[in-house]
């Protein structure tokens, strides 16, 4: 229960900022995984559902809880994805993006 409240608090905090930034584009945060984002869509990372080296590698590259990511484009053959994260651009395969749980913003 505590955790849920904490979680909601974080979400709430975050949304206030967002509303201030872009009043028109506000949407209720749908929870999905990173591979489902369409080009131009942004989302906030909720969790990375991996372990060991895979988790560490993604975290080192900045894919961490509460980070805002933006889907830029698909590769010409639709995979991998070009994602903007923490001010730089990263290529990530769909199979990995599938493990990154995000909330649409």
């Amino acid at each position, binding site marked *: 229960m505590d955790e849920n409240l904490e979680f909601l608090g974080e979400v709430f905090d975050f949304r206030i900022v967002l509303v201030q930034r872009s009043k028109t584009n506000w949407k209720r945060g749908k929870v999905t995984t990173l591979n489902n984002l369409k080009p131009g869509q942004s989302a906030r990372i909720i969790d990375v559902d991996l372990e060991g080296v895979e988790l560490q590698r993604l975290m080192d590259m900045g894919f961490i809880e509460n980070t805002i990511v933006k889907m830029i*484009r698909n590769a010409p053959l639709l995979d991998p994805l070009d994602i903007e994260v923490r*001010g730089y651009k990263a*290529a990530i395969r769909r199979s990995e993006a599938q493990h990154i749980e995000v909330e649409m913003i």
Partner: protein
Amino acid sequence: MKQQTDFYTVGLAGQPNVGKSTIFNMLTGSRQHIANFPGVTVEKKEGRYGLNGKRFQVVDLPGTYSLTSYSLEERVSRDFILREKPDIILTTVDASNLERNLYLVFQVMEMERPSGLVLNMMDVARNRGIRIDPDKLEKELGIPVVETIGNKGRGSQELKQMIDDVVEGRSDLNRTRRIDYGEMLEPILETLEAEIGAVTNGRYDVPARWAAIKLLEKDEEIQKRFAKLDSSKDSGILSYVDKTIENFRRTHKKSPAKIIASKRYQAAADVIEASVNKEQEVSRTLTDKIDSLVLHRVAGPLILLGVLFSFYELTMNLGTRLADWFFPFLSRLKEPVDMLFGASPDLLRDNLLHSMVSQGVVTGVLSILYYVPIFLVLFALIAILEDSGYMTRVAFIMDRVLRGFGLHGQSTLPLILGGVIVGGCAVPGVMATRAMKDEKARLITILIMPLMNCLAKIPFYILIVGMFFAANQGLILFSISIFTFITALLVAKAFSRYLVKGESAPFVMELPAYHLPTVGGVLRRTIERTWLFIKKVITIILAVMVLVWFFVLFPGIGFEREAVYDTMMNTEIRNMVQTAGQGNRFSAYFENDSLVRLMEFSDRFKRSRSRNAGDKEALASLKKDFEAENRDFFLIVNGGKDTEGAKYGDAKKAANALKVFQKKLKKLKRERKKELIDSSYAAMVGKSLEPVTLWAGFNWKINVAVISTFAAKESLVGTLGMIYSVDNEEGNNLGKTMKSMESGWTVWHAISILILVALFPPCLATLIMIKTESNSYKWAIFAATYPIVLGFILAAIVFQFGIHLF
């Protein structure tokens, strides 16, 4: 080393794509040395410089995003910091991408060595409207900060001054920022630190807090170290850590590792918040604009194709033209060697040592040096692709295709280096796989490297293609590339399904901002890689060529046959005297020693004349020189005329007789050499293999050439040249000679041998490289054998199919 107060070690850390190498070059200039870190194949660049009477040794650490134990590069970097205890660690960061870079900076700072920050690419950051306040950044981080623009060499003095200040303890910023890992973790870390102090007890010199963090991250290497230090299994520190992590996960629903990474990024964000001011949001950077074209669904692949094609064109055309232009100069290296040995007193046979040095050693070296201009062009183009940032886009576009075959987008560069498009070298190709994080894809990439069109195969392709497909050279060469590429992909697919086990690592690759490559940077890399190639091949090729020379010329044809040749030559000499006519005073020169001298004079004259062909003045003065050296000889070799134009009948007759003799002698020499080779050791081996290899249409001569290539493919054409004993003097090239001697060859013979060579096993140097990079003899031996089996079977199938159906 630490005792010497005037000698300091500077460690250079940083993430990839931050321009770390430009900082390294800025500090050390050209005084660099490349080696490997002890025991591993990670490249270690060292350089030196002096300042204020002190000497600084700069060690360039591999570019890494983090300092975990998951990759070799990261382990090497942190081991260096722990063991060598450099006097200062400089972390270079990309000012336009500070957040992710600070993530590494904090990890370096946690290792508790004196630190400094190099804020590189300040110009890029400024253009993007990012205003960084270095003073505030210094205060936030607690370490000195220097602004640089590495590729323009700006900030060098300030950087050196900062290094000096830090190693001298003059920097007042001696309190580095410590990341606060929060109330969830800090108490645990505190307990662990105390525990670690008790366990190591001075036996393992490591910062306690750092070790505590690593243990909570479940760092395997640190776990191993502590397992060794702490023998008590159940009550020991490791089981304590395990329990703590387990408890932590239960209460907080997250692993400590996640919190640690998240806090590091939090700290980075805080530092940026305090010291960076984004003036105006640049909505679309230049990189974004380029990417929207270069990575466009339709335009992207087309541009890629265009880039690869121009790559092919430039290397093939420009490179080959440069090589052809340069080669005549190289060939002159042969002359001093020939002069050194002088003329052979035996007109029929070369001096044995002379023959070994000239045909074995010098020919071998020259055949390698021929490639150097091509290599320079190839490596320069690759460096441009890498430095500009386009190479990662290639990986991005290609990943989906390559992944289907068990490879990786990052396999593209190694494969290009190995020669997927036009010729490269498997050695840098195998080396370039080091950048790949995906171990399985990396091993497969290494294994298919032998199937690429390494530069050494190209001369052979050109030879055969020139003989049989002269009209469509370009098309056929292109088809060979396509054929090898498709074969390599299928082989990769088979390997990944049936042979190479293991999980694929995640594919997360930075798409760095585009940069204009600098001339200096490109040149440096080009020369480094070319030099590596030369160093690798020269020694091997020398050994091989001498060996081949021996196997091709020995055991000889026996005294009886030699005597027959002597008799035939003496007959020709008598004929020459007769042709010159009775009482011709020039006939006196057709005897013994003077004939040898005359022949040498004649050769030298012809060579000099052809070199100065077209230049009338030079030719005239040259003739004067020769006339002065020996007037009678000159009259003969000049066709009976002196430099004034006066004609001498006897000399003219002698000249004609000599010409006939020279032709006959050449024929005799060729016949003898052919007989020599036919009865050589090499021929014995080649002939014994013929029953099998004839299935693919290969005669023993090809067999010999192929066997010799096991050591270095570079020698393939050279060996064939020896076997077919080509006389280069009269512009006879190998293609013409082979064609005249192998008149029974069909197009199918040509295709068959092209297939075999295209799929040929790697040379010795590549095998050594495969062994070191895959860390297993098994894979090296496998890489040596499967291509020849595959190549021969395919060649035999195509050949049998071809000759029976058409």
